[in-house]
Structure formats: C-alpha cells, structure tokens
C-alpha cells in the first residue's frame, strides 16, 4: 500500500536515509503497520469532534515578565560546533 516512492519521499521529509537493505526491510514493515492502522478508515466518525486534549483546558497564559535564561556558555555548551558564540552549520545551499 505504501510505495517505494512514498517511502523515499517521507524519508526526505523526515531527514532520514535508508540504504537498499534497510529499505527492503522497512517498506513491508511500514506497509504492515499502515495496513493495521488503516482499519480506522472504515469507522464512520463523521459526527465526532477530534480530541486533541482529553482533559480540556483553555486560556493558559503567562504574564509578559522576564525570567532569567542561560548564559552564552550554557547556551552553546552542548553545541557540536560553535564559533564566536554562534552555532555552526554546514553550507545550506
């Protein structure tokens, strides 16, 4: 049900890479799972609202008051590659 092309497209969206061997195993696994969850499509739930939160809250807000944050050292401390207080990432283009 899920085509090889779709698997590759979804992998790109998720920034994941699978080699041939992995794809050969993954595609049938995904197929099986999607097939299983697809059972929900046979339910007629047109009269129901979708639930995002089972315990309904609303208007949880905070005042516009500053709260102490991190120092530059703390903020960049876990960074794999940091230069002049900024996070380095490879060429985007």
């Amino acid at each position, binding site marked *: 049900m*899920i085509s090889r092309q*779709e*698997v590759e497209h*979804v*992998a790109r*969206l*998720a*920034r*994941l*890479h*699978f080699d041939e061997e992995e794809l050969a195993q*993954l595609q049938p*696994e*995904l197929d*099986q*799972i*999607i097939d*299983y*969850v697809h*059972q*929900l*499509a046979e*339910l007629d*739930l047109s009269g*129901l*609202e*979708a*639930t*995002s*939160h*089972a*315990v309904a*809250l609303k208007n*949880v807000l*905070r005042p516009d008051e500053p709260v102490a944050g*991190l120092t530059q050292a*703390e*903020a960049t*401390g*876990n*960074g*794999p*590659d940091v230069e002049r207080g900024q*996070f380095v*990432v*490879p*060429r*985007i*283009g």
Partner: protein
Amino acid sequence: MTADTGSAGYALDVRCLTAHQCRELLTSGDVSASELTRAYLDRIAAVDGSVQSYLLVDEAGAMAAAEAVDAKPRSERLPWEGVPIGLKDIFCVKGMETTCASRILKGYVPPYDATIIAKLRAAGLVFLGKLNMDEFAMGSSTENSAFKITRNPWDLERVPGGSSGGSAACVAAGEAPWALGTDTGGSIRQPASLCGVVGLKPTYGVVSRYGLVAFASSLDQIGPVTRNVGDAAALLDIIAGRDPRDSTSIGLPEPVGQPDRGDLEGLRFGVIKEFVGDACEPGVRDVFDSSVDAIGALGGVCEEVSLPSVERGIAAYYLIAPSEASSNLARFDGVRYGHRTSHSEDLYEMYTRTRSEGFGPEVKRRIMIGTYALSAGYYDAYYAQAQRTRTLIIQDFERAFGRFDFLISPTSPTVAFKIGERTADPLAMYLSDLCTIPVNLAALPGISIPAGFSAGLPVGLQIIGPHFSERGLLGAAHAVERKLEVDLVPPLAEAAR
C-alpha cells in the same frame, strides 16, 4: 524487613526495603543517609551486571548528597530527605548526562532541571543514577535501548517490559527503593506488571512534563514505580502539581495522602470484556480471576462491561503517538546538542546522516509512520480520524464510569516474553499494549499492582479510575494489595564480590 541496624561493618540488606522503610530507618537514626546510599550502591554493584537496569550510576554525586543530608541534624530534615531514587533516563537533570537511551543524545548534559527533578531535589531525595529504557520511550521491552538490554530480575532471559523497563527491573531487584518512569501507552504499568512491582500512571496533567523529553505530547505522563501502593502515593504527592512552565498541567485537587482502606465495601468494579478475551494468556487469566475473587472477598462487586471502541485503541495510538513523536524528535538535528555526523558536505546531508546514525530502527519506523500520517493528503484519513476515534474511546469510558467506580483488567495479556522473541515483528510488539493504551488515550489514571504468578513470572492487575480519582484509586489498590500479599523478591543471585 531484614534490615540490620546501621553501624560500620554490618551490610544493610536493601533487597526488599520500601521507601517508607528507608525513611523510618533514617528518621529513627538506625541508619545514616550515607550508609543507606552506600547499601544501594553496593546492591547495584552486586546485581546490575546481570540486570543491566542502570545506564549511569552517579556514585560520587549520590554519596555527596547523602553526606550533605547526614550533616543536617535529623530534626531539621524534610520527611523524605536522604531516601535514594532511580530516574528513567528521560528526565533532564542539570549537569547529568541524559540520553533517552539514544545515540543521538549521547553526551548531552542538560543545562536545566525538569520540574519534577527540582521537586525531588527540594524534597532531599538522593539520585542514584539514570535508568535504561526503550529509546525515546518507544517500545514495550526495553530492547530498543541503544546501549544495553535490561533483563527481568525474575528470569534474566526475559524482558522487563518497556519502555520503563530499567525502572521496573531496578525496583524489583532492590537496586533502588523506588523509581520514576513515564507512561505514554503503558510504559510504566506494563513493565511493572512484568517485573512484579507497582506502577502508577496518573491522570494526564497531574504531573508537570516540563523537562520530560517528549515522545507523544498529548499522552506522556510521569509516574512512580514502587514496591507498594503506599510508596506510590507518597511519591505522587511529591511530584504532582500544576506547573506554570507546562500549559497542560493541572495538578491534583488535593494530596492523596497515605491509603488506608481496608475493604472495598460499596465499590463497583467493571471487568473490561475486551481485555480478558483471547489475547489473554490462560495463566494470566487465572491470576486475574483470583484478583476478582479477592475483590469480591473484600466486599467489592465485579461485573463485566464492554467498551467496544477500545479495540481500536492500538490503531489510534499508533497514529497519534508517532505523529506527535515525528514532530517532537525533529529537533534532534545535530545543530545545538547531541550527536552530529562527522562528515557532511552540506546541511541536508548533515541532518540526514546525523539522524540516521543517531536513531535506532524502532524510532525511525515511528518517525516514518508519523510523518506519513501527517503529510499532505493523509492528515484527515489518518491523524484526524485517530483523534476522532479517541473521542469515541473517551465516551466509552465515560459511559462505563457512570456504572462503575473503577475498571479492572490484566495489565498485560502475557507474562514477560523472552528477549528477542518479538523484535522481528514490530506489530506483534505493539499488541503488548492492548490493555494499557486506551487508558492513555482517555487521559485516565491507571495503576498496576502485583497480582500473582504464572509459571513463576509476575502478573499484574490493572485498576483504572475516572479523571483525578487518584486518591480513591490508590485506596482501592492498597486494599487489594493487602489482600493478595504477593511476594516481591525475585530469586536474584548476587555476583561474587
């Protein structure tokens, strides 16, 4: 209780100490905090080679914390000060490596404490270390950890359950008096059941999620893994509470306090028909039936109830949870923390290699499912439809709670399975959570207590209550626990010292 009085030269046997017993030892002065922590560290050293429940043991930090407690006069200490605890490696602890059992977070040291961690610190608990889990809480056996497989203390060839398998095994093996786990689809209750300990998933919103590395935001909850219901109640009162940093947190209407219920007179228990059907192993069914008898003997009335929609629970869950997870795990991109691939020509390659190297196969599978379910053209048929199914399940539970005070079932349809038995078939693994998943979807509180054994392996009884009924739920659970009197100490050999 088999604790010796504490003085140098006598080893303290912690194998079956509850947290309350630890507290008594400390407040009476029989044992110092350092001696108590030392005893647990020794226990870990003796058995964790076999059990493998810890990813990180913070010996120096724990002893320092214990010594600091000892430096305070007993009269000035807080009630739980000095009692050790184990922490699932999914909570951000400032200054302590937090990996979620994933390579992608190896080496990550959080610059902040989770709210519950701050509460535990404020209460003076001693952190023994971080406990193994399925990677990013995705799994039912703890086999998905990137680092090690935890073993069931009752049979080292079998899984402890998951994803909080490290927490459950640790408490069962006496490697901590209590621990914290998380539950998204059963990840506290199912391992508790498989390891013969108590596991509580509170109502969604009772405990703050700030600092809990998110798996499925609308389902995750933090809860206690303990040796008895009384300990679970006490730990719940420490960690519960509305948190301004978590918009979805509500807290408890009042502290649950210590349960003291002796009988179950006047209470009605609904046996969820869909959870005691064919999927349930006969041995598990037998233990469950004995629990039903015990409830009856205590004056409770049990009757079967059908919640037809719960059979759709797994399907709904395996759409909602991976969808939310695919989004929650997108932040692991190698830019600001965690693993980054050592070689990449450009950003796209960096992202893709980093994530492919860092995530295990189950995590990748779920990210793929979730991304697919949310993608253009599929959202309504999958994600939205699953959220509508959720509404149906909530309604079924509401209807049931109109007739019953609590609902019961086996926690897991099977006892602990062998390591490797289900890893080849992801869907088979998902079906382990049949009895627990709907409880998360409906945001209800649920507890698993040891109910007995089948072929020498623990079987858990699950009790489910309406929203915010923790007080009554724990009261009922306590009464059943007292009646069942289940042996909690696994025959675990200590390694030669």
